[in-house]
């Protein structure tokens, strides 16, 4: 009797764990089916080569490139902000800072990631853009620059926290050997500790990129809703995520081609983040084996 009860419990716990697999399958099926129906009407070749994305206009074009360029542009700006700052923080905290400072500052930095992204969107549109316009009069009210900068601030803790864990995990002997040779903390940090923790740092960067690509509200609020193929950070652009929001806010008929565009855009986004996440998981696995 007791054995049967134990078995039933184990199986029901297992089925809960299997829900996570169902979620993944669900995501892939939903995106694939709707995208398949989309590509029955729009050729994949046009999708990847057309330089215009105007599904909501009378003259329709279905080229993902403008949305992709908007996404990559804001991501690039965000990473250019988050990477140097986040890495410096992680090196400072793990190699220089006193223990007590490290302990108090880490949860405070995590707070940056706990602030809802719609709040950051407000900052970007209402605070950062008007401020930047004082120096750059040509800056448009919606632009990828302030959206990217603010997004960069938001993902600082993604870079700093994971990198710091990786740096902190480097065995003490390596550091002491370097100090013994007369190296300064800076030399030790950059020539010994950072190279030893490189895989962990790379993982943190990849995850931050993946996070920036999928970020929605900051760009939907502050970067605009005009898909255009450009690398100019001062003009309005539209990201994949912002497009999905734009269509969802409107009144689009279920089953129409416009409805399916958000799934075609969504599967593009999903493939990108999936590749990045899988890559980071692989690297992390390998790196774990190295130290344990």
């Amino acid at each position, binding site marked *: 009797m007791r054995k049967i009860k134990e078995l039933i419990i184990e199986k029901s716990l297992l089925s809960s*764990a299997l829900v*996570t697999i169902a979620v*993944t399958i669900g995501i892939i099926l939903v*995106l694939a089916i709707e995208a398949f129906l989309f590509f029955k009407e729009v050729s994949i070749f046009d999708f990847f080569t057309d330089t215009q994305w105007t599904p909501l206009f009378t003259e329709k074009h279905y080229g993902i490139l403008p949305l992709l360029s908007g996404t990559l542009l804001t991501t690039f700006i965000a990473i250019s902000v988050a990477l140097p700052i986040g890495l410096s923080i992680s090196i400072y905290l793990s190699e220089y800072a006193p223990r007590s400072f490290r302990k108090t500052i880490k949860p405070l930095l995590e707070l940056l990631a706990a602030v809802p992204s*719609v709040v950051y969107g407000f900052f970007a549109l209402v605070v950062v853009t008007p401020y930047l316009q004082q120096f750059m009069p040509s800056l448009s009210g919606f632009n990828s620059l302030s959206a990217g900068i603010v997004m960069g601030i938001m993902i600082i803790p993604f870079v700093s926290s994971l990198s710091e864990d990786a740096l902190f995990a480097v065995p003490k002997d390596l550091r002491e050997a370097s100090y013994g040779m007369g190296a300064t903390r800076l030399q030790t940090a950059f020539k010994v500790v950072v190279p030893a923790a490189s895989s962990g740092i790379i993982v943190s960067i990849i995850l931050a990129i993946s996070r920036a690509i999928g970020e929605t509200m900051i760009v939907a609020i502050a970067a605009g809703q005009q898909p255009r193929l450009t690398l100019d950070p001062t003009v309005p652009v539209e990201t994949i995520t912002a497009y999905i929001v734009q269509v969802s806010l409107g009144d689009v008929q279920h089953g129409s081609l416009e409805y399916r565009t958000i799934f075609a855009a969504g599967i593009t986004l999903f493939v990108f983040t999936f590749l990045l996440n899988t890559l980071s998981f692989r690297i992390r696995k390998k790196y774990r084996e190295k130290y344990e």
Partner: protein
Amino acid sequence: MNSIQKNRLKDQLFKFWGIACTLIGLVLLVIFIGGILVDGLSRIDWAFITDLPSRKPEKSGIWTPLMGSIWILVLTAIISFPISVAAGVYLEEYAKKNRLSALLEINISNLAGVPSIIYGLLGLEVFVRIMNLGASVLAGALTLSLLILPIIIVATREAIKAVPSSIRDASYALGASKWQTIWNQILPASSGGILTGIILALSRAVGETAPLIVVGALAYVPFAPQGPLDQFSVLPIQIFNWISRPQQGFIDNAAAAIIILLLITFIMNGIAVYFRNKWQKKLQ
């Protein structure tokens, strides 16, 4: 200056650079929040909390989105809690080292990295269309439950891992079965860590905007939801809606609503940290 002095100088310079970087994000956050307090604080009064939405900014309140957020919070907690804790217990206590558990592990890590808006597309198709729930509170809560599943699972596993093996061994030595050990010993001992994870996950859910917009939550709802199948709005969507309007009055409203949203987020984070500290002390 010889090379030793040069290196020492560089070392010192990097130290100050590091401190500056550590503080810059926080300083900016304080400036931002300070600005929001200036814009929004004067707008907050009891009427702002209890008023229904209106076309005039000075008459608009956050009652319906606030109630929507609370509905979403409660339903999401009820739905996600049993599934994710059960999954965490399975992975930590039952799963053998085989291909299935490796698959579950890589899958959960991948799900945690899926952009939230993709969960919105899943919810739109599965809950809103196929299960025919419409753009209801329930559809939104189900969507957010899937979104926070991986977060709670990871937190549950970490909490169970932290339980000393002596507790487990003692329970087995008294003849307890595996489930009795888990139910009577492991779960109570790890409850603080699990609770922390759930609160943090819920505080993430309360700030989520994009998946709920995709699911079909509205920017304007005349009344607060009465049941799980009613249409709804949430605070972040109301904020988004107000930000997109040109009048200054609505921008002030947005700032005021942000203060309320941040208050909820920070209080939840504070409670989570409190529980974690208490729990960690108890474990030692």
